[in-house]
């Protein structure tokens, strides 16, 4: 098992390297002058030149690349062009916020999604099933930023049930988490409904129900076990995308997380920040994949066998 984990980690390294290289290339192909971002309106050419020198922008591309990679390995992600603060410091401040949001979205999406899906499956064909199908379809199709705006408008301003924006307490987390989690919840609802339906058709379930075992027990024990694997896949993929910065959600709600950080940096061509956030996200992606593989092993003994012998 440990071997397996180590192998996966080693496999991940070229991926991360590849991501860093592509982002480096992209940044250097970009037209536009990052030095200006720092300087503002009043400037003189000599100041610009000295700044350029300091930021190492005058060296050849190859040299810059080497510097870049070696810095990253040392843990130095550079200083933001705009604010001159260390990227690592800012990331340390912002990552917990994005994590909070991601967890919040998961906590809403997973139980609600499964509940709704199972409920719909049990009541297949009835009106409530159809309604839930439509709601979940809507959830998948509605654009996140649109949902976010409507949530602020309706729940925050018109009904005033929850504080519309802000951070620092659970009540502030609810609206952004709903906006972010809706899509996942809908996907999970549909998937768990589909799998549940399959399970319900199985003979052994019918037998169990006929024998008089409580419906709830049967469903949970057998039905959900089957759902777990696809569920983990969906949850993992979505969680990865939340951590990648629910860019749009964070911007609209004014949530000080990594997504917004990256978005602003891209718009302003703040290369060190862009590269720092991309690295962070790639790491998360890779980490999640490894965790997912471990979860598969845990859940499905067949996969576990395979892994041990790898």
């Amino acid at each position, binding site marked *: 098992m440990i071997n397996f984990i180590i192998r996966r980690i080693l496999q991940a390294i070229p*991926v991360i390297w590849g991501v860093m290289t*592509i982002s480096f290339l992209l940044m250097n192909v970009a037209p536009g002058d990052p030095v200006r971002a720092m300087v503002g309106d009043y400037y003189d050419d000599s100041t610009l030149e000295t700044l350029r020198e300091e930021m190492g922008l005058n060296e050849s591309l190859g040299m810059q690349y080497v510097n870049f990679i070696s810095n990253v390995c040392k843990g130095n992600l550079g200083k933001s062009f705009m604010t001159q603060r260390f990227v690592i410091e800012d990331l340390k401040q912002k990552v917990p916020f994005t994590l909070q949001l991601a967890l919040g979205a998961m906590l809403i999406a997973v139980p609600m999604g499964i509940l709704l899906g199972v409920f719909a499956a049990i009541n297949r064909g009835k009106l409530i099933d159809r309604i839930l199908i439509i709601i979940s379809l809507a959830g*998948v199709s*509605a654009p996140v930023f649109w949902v976010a705006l409507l949530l602020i408008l309706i729940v925050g301003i018109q009904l005033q049930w929850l504080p519309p924006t802000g951070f620092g307490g659970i009540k502030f987390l609810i609206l952004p988490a709903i906006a972010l989690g809706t899509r996942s919840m809908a996907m999970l609802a549909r998937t768990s409904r589909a799998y549940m339906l399959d399970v319900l058709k199985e003979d052994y379930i019918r037998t169990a129900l006929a024998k008089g075992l409580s419906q709830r027990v049967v469903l949970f024990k057998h039905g959900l076990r089957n759902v777990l694997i696809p569920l983990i896949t969906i949850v993992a993929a979505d969680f990865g995308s939340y951590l*990648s910065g629910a*860019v749009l959600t964070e911007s609209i709600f004014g949530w000080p997380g990594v997504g917004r950080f990256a978005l602003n940096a891209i*718009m302003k061509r703040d290369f060190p920040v*862009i590269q720092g956030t991309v690295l962070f996200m790639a790491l998360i992606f890779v980490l999640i994949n490894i965790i997912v593989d471990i979860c598969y092993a845990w859940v499905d003994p067949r996969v576990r066998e395979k892994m041990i012998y790898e």
Partner: protein
Amino acid sequence: MNNMVNHFFKDRVTQLGLFLLLILIITASVSNFVNSANIQNLDNRLLSAGESNHLLGTDHFGRDILLRIIVGAGVSIKVGLLASTISLLLGILLGLMAGYFGKWVDTLIMRFTDIMMAFPVLLFLIAISATFKPGINTAMIAIGVVSWPPMARLMRSQVLMLKSREFIASAEALGFSHIRILFFHILPNCLAPIIVTFTLGFSGAIMAEASLSFLGLGVQPPTPSWGSMINEGKDFLRIAPGISVYPGLAIAITVLAFNLVGEGLRDALDVKLEK
């Protein structure tokens, strides 16, 4: 074959999807003939739905919202189509090569795919669009270039499945060239999953375009795009919510339509595969 077609069309949910898709295509075609979506009328700003012959009201420049949504349909379909096609071609090509040639080609392409998938999609799109002059063309290419991994993976697994089959072995024995085998023997047998993935990917492309336009990086004003309409309307949500709400509905319905049809196709074609 008959069975499959029957199954597909009989399903109620798919029927809804097809119906919506039909409306969408008609709207998109009509949009070519609409000329007045960009005409400003500063005296008629922010009218509500139904006032002065404007079925959905007007926006902050006095432009008719319904007309802009119609034109936006054309834009969305165009972008979705082109982006999905680019992604289709790239995905098929790379997937075929990876699966068929195997060994280092496979490893190289798969690593590359992993790297692409490790990039957070939206941020990658934003980065590309912000880097190379934002606009509709950049958006189309960017979306295409970023969306091919799932298709590539699919193709690769399909090829791997088919590679071991007899008819491939006999084709090789007969001395057919690789290209011929790939395009005339393998590819035709993968059509079903390709179509499904393409259709489902279409909705992703539309959503991606909307997100980019929302950020100001996709379709540029004054050309209407549903995403940029939502962006323009977000400051007016308390005065004239329609500017943002209606385009959002349009996006939701469109994405829904493609998803329904895609899933319907998947169900129908899966049925065939089982048999």
